[in-house]
């Protein structure tokens, strides 16, 4: 074997969220709870305590699926500024945060789009005007594996995508010669979000959380993050969690706050529980076409409401929510 491994190429993107593994180990030792502590608190308190201006923030779920909306609205309500967002299939979440003026930078795997629903007016406008800066590019898989490296406490993860593209050139990755195969391989740096927000169907007061359906990348993302704030449809007794320990996707020592918020993913889809609120999503997409419209939406639904329960009343309350439950639950989907 040779004495040196050549570095073949270096991405020019900004290095977002990387931390020295030893520095992060020391932080974890000092700051993460290893005992069972009751972490129940209000969404307001969770955001006040754990989401500072300028934080590197990641959002759980996927696009319009299981998005932690109650926490997102609260961040807007508390007028956080200068956030750096992990654009890992960031869709409705990032669009509202940008509309709310909370965001300064984005590292982009997928953002500024709503899948089939089209582009994001608010997000696009902010980037095109320079209000929000995209500081690096990468792919969905590459972002996920940045979190895997963060979870594992290692400085990087080898990947075989992105080579030969501007996506790599604008990433924070490097390409080296694999010492075994002699072929080029890319190393993506670990990513350690300051704060991650995740909405789950159930957890206990300590934060032992179970997700129904696909966890997407929340297993790795949560473990990679310094602070993890959970909203949950329901807080259950820990005996209920312990009856099915294999179903636990996020263990308590990863978690910093537990907020019970039924319908906390509205207007996004909560698998097995409630469907997208399509008219409400469309209302945002229409309103967001102009800065004034976006502001009007936020004034009405976020700043104009004291908390998520007032918001739920405003979007139609029990009748709307019942309808969304019926759509999702009557389609013959299993639990």
């Amino acid at each position: 074997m040779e004495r040196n491994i050549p570095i073949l190429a270096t991405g020019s993107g900004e290095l977002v969220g990387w931390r020295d593994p030893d520095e992060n180990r020391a932080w974890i030792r000092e700051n993460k709870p290893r005992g069972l502590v009751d972490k129940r608190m209000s969404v307001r308190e969770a955001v006040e305590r754990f989401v500072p201006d300028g934080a590197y923030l990641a959002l759980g779920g996927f696009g319009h699926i299981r998005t932690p909306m109650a926490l997102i609205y609260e961040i807007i309500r508390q007028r956080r500024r200068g956030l750096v967002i992990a654009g890992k299939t960031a869709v409705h979440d990032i669009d509202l945060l940008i509309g709310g003026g909370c965001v300064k930078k984005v590292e982009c795997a997928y953002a500024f789009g709503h899948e089939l629903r089209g582009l994001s007016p608010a997000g696009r406008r902010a980037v095109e005007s320079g209000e929000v800066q995209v500081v690096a590019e990468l792919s969905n898989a590459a972002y996920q594996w940045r979190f895997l490296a963060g979870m594992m406490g290692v400085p990087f993860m080898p990947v075989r995508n992105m080579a030969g593209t501007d996506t790599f050139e604008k990433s924070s990755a490097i390409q080296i010669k694999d010492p075994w195969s002699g072929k080029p391989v890319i190393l993506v740096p670990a990513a350690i979000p300051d704060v991650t927000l995740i909405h789950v169907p159930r957890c206990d007061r300590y934060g032992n959380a179970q997700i129904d359906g696909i966890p997407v990348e929340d297993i790795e993302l949560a473990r990679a993050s310094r602070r993890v704030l959970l909203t949950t449809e329901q807080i259950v007794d820990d005996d209920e969690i312990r009856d099915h320990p294999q179903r636990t996707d996020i263990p308590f020592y990863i978690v910093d706050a537990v907020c019970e918020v039924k319908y906390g993913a509205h207007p996004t889809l909560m698998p097995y529980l409630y469907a997208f609120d399509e008219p409400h999503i469309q209302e945002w997409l229409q309103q967001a076409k102009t800065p004034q419209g976006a502001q009007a939406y936020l004034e009405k639904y976020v700043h104009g409401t004291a908390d998520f329960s007032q918001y739920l009343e405003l979007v139609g309350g029990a009748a709307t929510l019942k309808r969304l439950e019926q759509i999702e639950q009557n389609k013959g989907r299993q639990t």
Partner: protein
Amino acid sequence: MIAQQDSHKIEARPFAKQEYTQAELITCVASRLLEDNRSVLVGTGLPMIASMLAQRSHAPNLLLVFEAGGIGPRIPELPVSVGDSRTFYKAVAATSMHDVMSACQAGYIDYGFLGAAALDAYGNINTTVIGDWEHPKVRLPGSGGANDVGSFCWRTIFIMRNQSTRTFQSKLDFITTPGWISGPGARERSGLPHGCGPYRVITQLAVYGFDEHTKRMQVVSLHPGVTLEDVQANSEFPILAPAHVPVTEPPSPEERRLLREIDPRGIVLGR
């Protein structure tokens, strides 16, 4: 997610005097490319419908995989997101992006679908930005899973419903996802997995493949009523063509019946 930025602009534009729509034709062509007992990483929109059509016609044992974690579902109705609950309904596994992308990287996935704002002669695509990256004219969503599909899947199929000199570009503003990059061997030299890459491009005008020797785009078949001149007039780069170019087989009545079954409300296909 698989970039499908164009697929929300869904219009029901029937071909002149023909019974089927553009969307139907494209979907049927895509569907026929999918062999039985193979796997496909599915996006929303037309790729989803093409995959379901393949399953209901010639490829009942086609494995549908979704990047967010759904594997082998029995799709009850059209998903609107590659992460929504329909993508893991009665699935053989509801797992994670890590698991699915690892399977892709390890070589388990045969087909992948991509759409794009723009594409070049080598099948490289741009879904990131129009104009300058630092100061974009139009900011697009970025790679999503597109770079992963283009890097990992054995055969990538592109669906571009709006072929024009604006979308078939000589030089992309940004290469989001690798096609054949700059020609034969370029993928391997760059460090991408060996032996995989762009397979077909399906537009409203024609079906394209890639020349074996140059890896540049060439016509495979022209849709009914379309000429080579039409094709070339709607591309910034020259498109190769063999001596004899066949006509794309139109959707059969059975295919159209199945399409209506899959998308009864015309959500994606229009009507």
